[in-house]
């Protein structure tokens, strides 16, 4: 089996994997980082979104071996110790989740969106959520949470 090395949430990891191992399986099964979810496994739902070298990707549609040398950030890497990331706080405050299954992917997508677009308006947020499916919330509170999280992130950046 070939070996892959990458940085996950700031820590360098090196492991043996099969060619076909997907990034999401590497994170969940090998590293036991089960915050990243598998919803559809067909590239549709966005539950598996993580950041690869700073941009949002679907980890169910990325090979672990293609991440050789990459920096990966998962939902587990977002909080600063006990202090939640402003986007996590916003999802909590605005009731942006019900069962929570889609939430890690929603939050990783939201953080990526804000990094690229600053404080997006409602229409932009809805368009940017094209690749993230939620079966529970009807999206309204997710959109509100992202708008609030965007404000908070931009404030904390000065």
């Amino acid at each position, binding site marked *: 089996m*070939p070996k892959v090395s990458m940085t996950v949430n700031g820590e360098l990891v090196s492991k043996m994997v*099969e*060619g*076909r191992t*997907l990034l999401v399986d590497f994170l969940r099964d090998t590293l036991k980082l089960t915050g990243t979810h598998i919803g559809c*496994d*067909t*590239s549709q739902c*966005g539950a598996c*979104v993580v950041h*690869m070298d700073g*941009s*949002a*990707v*679907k980890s169910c*549609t*990325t*090979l672990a*071996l*293609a991440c*050789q040398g990459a920096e990966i950030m998962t939902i587990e890497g977002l909080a600063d110790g006990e202090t939640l990331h402003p986007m996590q706080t916003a999802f909590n405050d605005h009731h942006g989740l019900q069962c929570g299954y889609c939430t890690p992917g929603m939050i990783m*997508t939201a953080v*990526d*969106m804000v990094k690229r677009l600053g404080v997006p308006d409602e229409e932009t947020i809805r368009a*940017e959520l*094209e*690749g*993230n499916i939620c079966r529970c919330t009807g999206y309204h509170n997710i959109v509100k949470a992202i708008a609030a999280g965007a404000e908070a992130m931009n404030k904390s950046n000065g």
Partner: protein
Amino acid sequence: MYDFNFHRPKSLRKAAAILAENEEAKLIAGGQTLLPTMKQRLAAPSDVVDLSAISGLSGIELKGRKLQIGAMTKHYDVATSQVVREALPALADLAGMIGDPAVRNRGTIGGSVANNDPAADYPAACLALNATIVTNKRRMTADEFFTGLFDTALEEGEIITKVIFPLPKRAAYAKFRNPASRYAMAGVFVSKRGREVRVAVTGAGSDGVFRLTQAEEMLSKRFSEKALKDLTVDPDGLVGDIHGSAEYRANLVAVMTRRAVAAA
């Protein structure tokens, strides 16, 4: 997905050599089409050759009146490139309409063109602009390159290195998305360069991307929405499926053609 040997060569020559040695090998770019296909076991390559470590395959460059885009350039980079926005805004718009943000962060122009999905967006731009597809072996015009449903003139072991778009005077892309998959139900790219008008349609043809010569003739007389007032599209040869009948798509193609001309 069945297991395979994974390769990540640093040069085109090495990539071509691996393809030549392994008959069942396949290239992977962004993987946004290949991996879903392999999961469904519609493809089961013995070897997968990742193009991402080869330098010089991605990037955007304006050379005179030609826009050159490396095969490994991601949809996101085309959509947001200042150079593309200024030189060929219709292409930036098109790239920004592909899939969703995470797909655009991985998917590449080379992968999209090589795959020639009948509902993919880039083939319409290539055909309407008569782009040149450059490979490690030769150059082909879009007219020569797209040969049918999921079919291209690419030979075994041939690797796309870049796509070159001659800059049009006017161009626009109008896409009617399937609301669930976000692929085109009908996408029409129109362009005018000198006297030549080209109209290419994706998402609707049962044989893949095609040129709507009838609209081209109408528009070469006068490039305006008015010139299309008698345009009706024949449903014969169009896709009819659970998402819409051939007649419905024929109407969509006419409407999208008018919208694209109005926006160009």
